[in-house]
């Protein structure tokens, strides 16, 4: 049987870099094909070549689609042939309804006049297919990321998709939403839709993929067929990084010291809907040198908890006590929280963590400018030295500390965000999804940094949607559900099953 898609020795060069070096990719009809590789390995470039973002003639090699040579000159070309790509950053318009979004640019209309009846009817059919129980009239704005993803897929289905490409579809999803999405992929497969999934989450890849293609440094490293052999995660990781990773979590001497921070009776109401309580009577503590995890589903209130403690950066009617070293501290504004020794490393580094157009230097020193200034005048030399120090300590890969952070990869950006908060000299760091969207190698480095911090006696609170990461890193894990803590587990007691059962039984 000829494959649905065959990309033959695709080579794509940018000025100075060979992004793809004769990559081969063969996707069989009706399969789920996983494309894995570290960030910057060339996965997205390959998909851009396929979808016509880089028009034919802009690269070397051939694309054969449905048995014939395909020359896509634009995204429209590829979409017309049923190749639809759903990007990591969702392309929905928040203030339009689900139905309007699904048929945007493809309206059910006659002579430019929209047929709303037909639009809603078709939307209902599509939503049924993807298992989304919402009215077609609902604004996309009011949906969570998981549901928005389903709308994107419904939109793809409306265009008679033959080859669906999902770029890190579960990166922003909680465990249960991810699960639902993967189930949907399997269901679409039954209906004859072929998919390519790009993902960093290898357990998911293993769960759904029929074939796995690993790309490293712009070249195909291996293609593994799940129906012929048993694919292990270790095997994929080895191919991805080109070396054995015996331990995915670096070893750490676990020893926790005195009580560092205690939070008690913490209550928070929703930022915009003041009648909705998002944090309910939470009590927890962190010891010096301890890494404490907060597990929970998306929307369980973990970020809201962290941000409300960090200078009321989130929420309304906040009440409760925070003690550091046994003494009550005032954390009512962000600068007071920073002075009290707190740092919050956001889950959303691009919009909340960094000034993207500024240099690494200026981003790092922003949290503590007075430290490199006298009488409000910045000492540029000292500032540069500070940045150089963090560049070396964190292994930030950049030609110069005067590089704009927008030009760095996700992992390196995350290291800049961490540097910036370390420069504020906190005692307690709250890390919100510290490894989201970064590759395996960079993750390992971030874990190393976290261990280093705990070795220095700092308290680390780690919020993560990746349970294996919490299990691998934390001394204790609090389990959160619907705004309240529903359990506390020590590293020994904790397992994915126990965490899930605490969430489910509550």
């Amino acid at each position, binding site marked *: 049987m000829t494959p649905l898609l065959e990309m033959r020795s695709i080579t794509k060069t940018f000025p100075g870099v060979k992004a793809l070096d004769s990559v081969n990719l063969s996707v069989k009809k009706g399969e789920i094909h996983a494309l894995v590789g570290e960030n910057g390995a060339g996965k997205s470039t390959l998909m851009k070549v396929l979808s016509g973002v880089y028009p034919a003639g802009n690269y070397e090699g051939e694309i054969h689609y449905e048995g014939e040579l395909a020359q896509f000159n634009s995204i429209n070309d590829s979409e017309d042939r049923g190749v639809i790509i759903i990007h990591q950053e969702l392309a929905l318009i928040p203030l339009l309804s689900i139905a309007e979004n699904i048929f945007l640019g493809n309206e059910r209309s006659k002579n430019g006049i929209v047929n709303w009846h037909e639009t809603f009817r078709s939307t209902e059919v599509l939503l049924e297919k993807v298992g989304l129980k919402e009215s077609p009239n609902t604004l996309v704005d009011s949906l969570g990321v998981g549901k928005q993803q389903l709308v994107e897929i419904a939109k793809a289905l409306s265009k008679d998709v033959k080859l669906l490409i999902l770029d890190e579809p579960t990166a922003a999803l909680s465990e249960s939403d991810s699960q639902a999405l993967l189930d949907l992929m399997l269901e679409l497969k039954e209906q004859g839709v072929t998919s390519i999934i790009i993902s960093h989450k290898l357990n998911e890849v293993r769960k759904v993929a029929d074939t796995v293609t690993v790309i490293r440094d712009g070249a195909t490293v291996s293609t593994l067929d799940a129906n012929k052999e048993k694919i292990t995660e270790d095997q994929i990781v080895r191919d991805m990084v080109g070396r054995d990773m015996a331990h995915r979590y670096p070893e750490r001497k676990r020893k926790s010291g005195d009580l560092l921070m205690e939070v008690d009776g913490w209550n928070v109401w929703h930022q915009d809907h003041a009648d909705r309580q998002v944090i309910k009577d939470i009590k927890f503590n962190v010891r010096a040198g301890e890494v404490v995890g907060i597990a929970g589903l998306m929307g369980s209130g973990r970020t809201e908890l962290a941000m409300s403690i*960090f*200078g009321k*950066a989130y929420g309304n009617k906040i009440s409760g006590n925070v003690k550091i070293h046994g003494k009550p501290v005032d954390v009512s504004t*962000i*600068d007071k*929280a*920073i002075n009290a020794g707190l740092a*919050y490393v*956001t889950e959303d580094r691009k*919009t*909340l*963590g*960094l*000034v*993207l*157009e*500024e240099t690494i230097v*200026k981003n790092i020193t*922003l*949290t503590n*400018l*007075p430290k490199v*200034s006298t009488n*409000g*005048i*910045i000492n*540029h*030399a000292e500032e*540069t*030295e500070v940045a*150089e120090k963090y560049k070396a300590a964190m292994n930030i890969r950049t030609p*110069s500390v*005067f590089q704009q952070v927008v030009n760095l990869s996700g992992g390196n950006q995350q290291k800049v965000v961490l540097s*910036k908060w370390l420069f*504020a000299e906190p005692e307690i760091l709250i890390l919100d999804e510290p490894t989201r969207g970064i590759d395996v190698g960079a993750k390992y480095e971030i874990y190393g940094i976290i261990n280093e911090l705990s070795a220095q006696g700092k308290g680390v609170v780690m919020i993560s949607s990746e349970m294996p990461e919490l299990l691998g890193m934390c001394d204790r894990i609090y389990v959160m559900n619907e705004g309240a803590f529903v359990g506390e587990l020590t590293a020994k007691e904790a397992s994915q099953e126990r965490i899930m059962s605490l969430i489910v039984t509550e």
Partner: protein
Amino acid sequence: MELSETTAQATAEAKSNAIGTYLKSHLREYGLLFALIAIMAFFQIVTDGVLLKSVNITNLFLQNSYIIIMALGMLMVIVAGHIDLSVGSVMGFVGALAAILIVQWGWSMWIAIPICLVVGGLIGAAQGYWVAYWKIPSFIVTLAGMLVFRGMSLWLLDGQSVGPFPKSFQLLSTGFIPDMLPTGYVADVLGLKRFNSTAFAAGVLSAFAIVWFGLKARARDKQYGIQGEPYAFFVGRNAIVSIALVFIAYKLATFRGLPNVLISMAVLTVLYSFLTQNTTLGRRVYALGGNIKAAKLSGIKTERLTFLTFANMGVLAALAGLVFAARLNTATPKAGFAVELDVIAAVFIGGASMSGGVGKVIGAVVGAFIMGVMNNGMSIMGIGIDYQQMIKGLVLLAAVFFDVYNKQKQS
């Protein structure tokens, strides 16, 4: 032998590559400087040398001083991610207030001037309050301010022009620094009618200062391994700037010397350059404009900072109003009409970004001079106000297009 040749070739290539990338990333700054020079050269030719006559250079400074003073504040407002449409009206209102206080009520200018500056600050603060603490878009708040203060100056002046001001007040704008050096003989030696040595010395000294500070900064950059401007560029740029300074100083010296207002302008430009580039306050304004959420989460008091940039703008608009009134020697209800557009255009021509976080003081000043030279040159040529406006509009569009195009090509 062959080997060393190829190595030499390779290094030469790498060097030219480095210069190429540097030029690419700083194209905007050099482009601005060259645009100013090209525009001046053009008008110098088409006006048969009138543009660079001593009297006209002096005029250029006097004509554009109030635009430049306001461009300094506007730069900070725009870098912070906002806009201030009210500055023309505020300028007119403060000029009117000065006229009422000094001309009608006979107050001493030494009391009236501080009052006017404080009123300007309060007006800026009042607008900043709505923008910073109530998050009302600055476009709307200052559009309201523009109408309110235009109306208030009409009301204050009762629709009439009020003047003239006392001589001492006029000196604010039209006064000159007297020659303080005992070098009266220089004029005779050079065979000139007059030669203000103080003005010339000031020009030469500032040229020296610029080169000196430039060299010092270069040495420091090198010490910290910062890849700075290629040496040839550094020399070229400084040579052009120094020659221009000395040339202008010479021209001023052969007329009436340094205008008072040039001194205030130069001092303010240096001050605001320093403020934006070297202080924590300035840095925080850039961070605020670059990404307000990230700045806020870094512990920066974004509201207060926004408030302050508007208050500062108010003070500078008031100063501009005083300078303008002093130059016209009368306060008219039309003073400052549509001036906000020239100020904003100067800042954008100078490379600031509408979305905030980007822009330099020196760029805004050069931008204002580009506008000023064009106004002046076209007036000398006798081009009607209709064509002048069309041309200025197209220049603004071209400058911003150049920015956007550059950015797209880079990415």
